[in-house]
């Protein structure tokens, strides 16, 4: 018998990180591309993301996932839950792009979850809100107001907002709402990350690795490079 057979370790309640995926399921996501439609690629990516988190025991106990889908309307497809407590959804695409409403629903969801963590005494890390879209908001959506809300939320460290622009997305609009965050005494401007729909799989692999780091004890400056980005050169 070795010393390992005698060492006991405590069962501490794990700190939590909420990652809210705000995903565009408007009609354009069903457009057929050479590699398949973006919505199918997204579904495959979500499934892979779920599997990768499930495989990483430490992250699976710390990371809560929520999914908000938006098109003509906004739907909370998945309320915050550990991956072991839900199956990856299969999303379908139709309708227009109420992007601002979708992101606002995501912000409200993570704020409510943070309040729940506080009320129950659970230690938590900064929430992530990841917007995935291939288009532009419907006419009349309050993009300027949303940009202010994101800027305030990022400045006050309420959440980290990461906009992902799938091929065809209005990157200029995403840039205008992206915000910035401060870490280690420096301010970092967040830029929208362009993504070819065929690289959803790679993106979700990066996201699971990045959130694993952020949900342990690290932060954004130690994240792996986003090699899935359009134009990225290793």
């Amino acid at each position, binding site marked *: 018998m070795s*010393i*390992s057979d*005698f*060492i*006991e*370790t*405590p*069962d*501490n*309640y*794990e*700190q939590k990180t909420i990652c809210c995926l705000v995903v565009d399921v408007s009609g354009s996501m069903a457009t057929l591309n050479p590699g398949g439609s973006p919505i199918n690629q997204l579904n495959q990516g979500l499934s892979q993301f779920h599997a990768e988190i499930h495989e990483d*025991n*430490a992250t699976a106990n710390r990371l809560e996932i929520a999914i908000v889908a938006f098109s003509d309307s906004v739907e909370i497809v998945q309320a915050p839950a550990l991956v072991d407590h839900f199956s990856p959804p299969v999303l379908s695409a139709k309708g227009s792009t109420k992007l601002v409403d979708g992101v606002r629903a995501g912000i409200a969801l993570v704020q409510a979850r943070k309040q729940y963590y506080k009320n*129950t*005494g*659970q*230690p*938590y*890390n*900064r929430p992530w809100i990841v917007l995935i879209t291939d288009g532009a908001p419907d006419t009349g959506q309050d993009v300027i107001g949303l940009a202010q809300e994101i800027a305030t939320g990022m400045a006050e*460290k309420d959440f980290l907002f990461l906009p992902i622009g799938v091929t065809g997305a209005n990157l200029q609009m995403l840039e205008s709402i992206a915000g910035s965050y401060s*870490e*280690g*005494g*420096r301010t970092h401007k967040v830029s929208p990350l362009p993504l070819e729909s065929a690289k959803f799989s790679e993106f979700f692999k990066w996201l699971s690795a990045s959130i*694993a*780091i952020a949900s*342990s*004890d*690290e*932060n*954004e*400056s*130690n994240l*792996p490079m986003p090699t899935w980005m359009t134009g990225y050169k290793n």
Partner: protein
Amino acid sequence: MNTSNKPINDSEEFCSSNEWLIVDYSAIGKDHSKHNIPCQDHRYVQRINPQWGVAVCCDGAGSAEKSDIGSRFVAERTANVLTLAVEKEQWLIHNHLPTQEVWRTISRQALYQVYSDLESFAQINNLELKLLASTVIAVIYSPIGLLVTHIGDGRAAYCNHTAQWTAIITPFKGEEANMTVFITSSIWHDPDKYIESRVIDDKPLGFTLLSDGCENFAFLTHVNTSKTADQIKIEDINLPFQGFYHPIVKHLKAKHLTLSHEEIQAEWATILESGTEKIKETTDDKTMILGLWI
């Protein structure tokens, strides 16, 4: 849930040399290893004689690019500055410890000295000070008690004559789980808030300093105290886990009778690298110093 934390009375075994056996090790975290990030923890043990010395544990900020350099500098410099304090104040010669008030003043001056030296080091090397951000936990150990001081998070504890391990610092935590302050933070205007210093005026049989990467397997930190299964009420606690320390103490004391210090250090390294599955799977860097009176 393994949250039982009862002491085991085996403390008097193998205590015959009247000196400290000190083991120390830093293991790179699983995530740091995977992404080629250097170990940002450092530790330093300055033995003044077999009974007295200084042990320091530092954890560089994950957000600071050069924090591995900062934590190394702070660990070594803090040990040097506190060793000079032991000599200057003649605590060893007179075999006594200062009062709480005196220690608070001296430890703050010492840490401010380290901060100033780090500032000079940053200037000389053309580095931004914040890039060197690091926590620090330091203890002056002796046969008659401990003097502990710290900035930031991590944990420290001592073992008394009844074999009870007790926490001797309270980690500084921000709103989020991974937030804390560093020696480079804007803390010097309000040291009462950010620097904790304590005199442990009790004969110690052991002490431990650890970076926060170790706390999940060596301390009880968060326990669900809800009486109902469907509800959560987490209590933030700070208890060294007796089931972790007791078998290790017993093992190392027994090994001390037959192995060289290098071999005992190697045993300690193995425990911190992969002593249990939970230790092995730890994502953050792991540094722990363990002192045992033998």
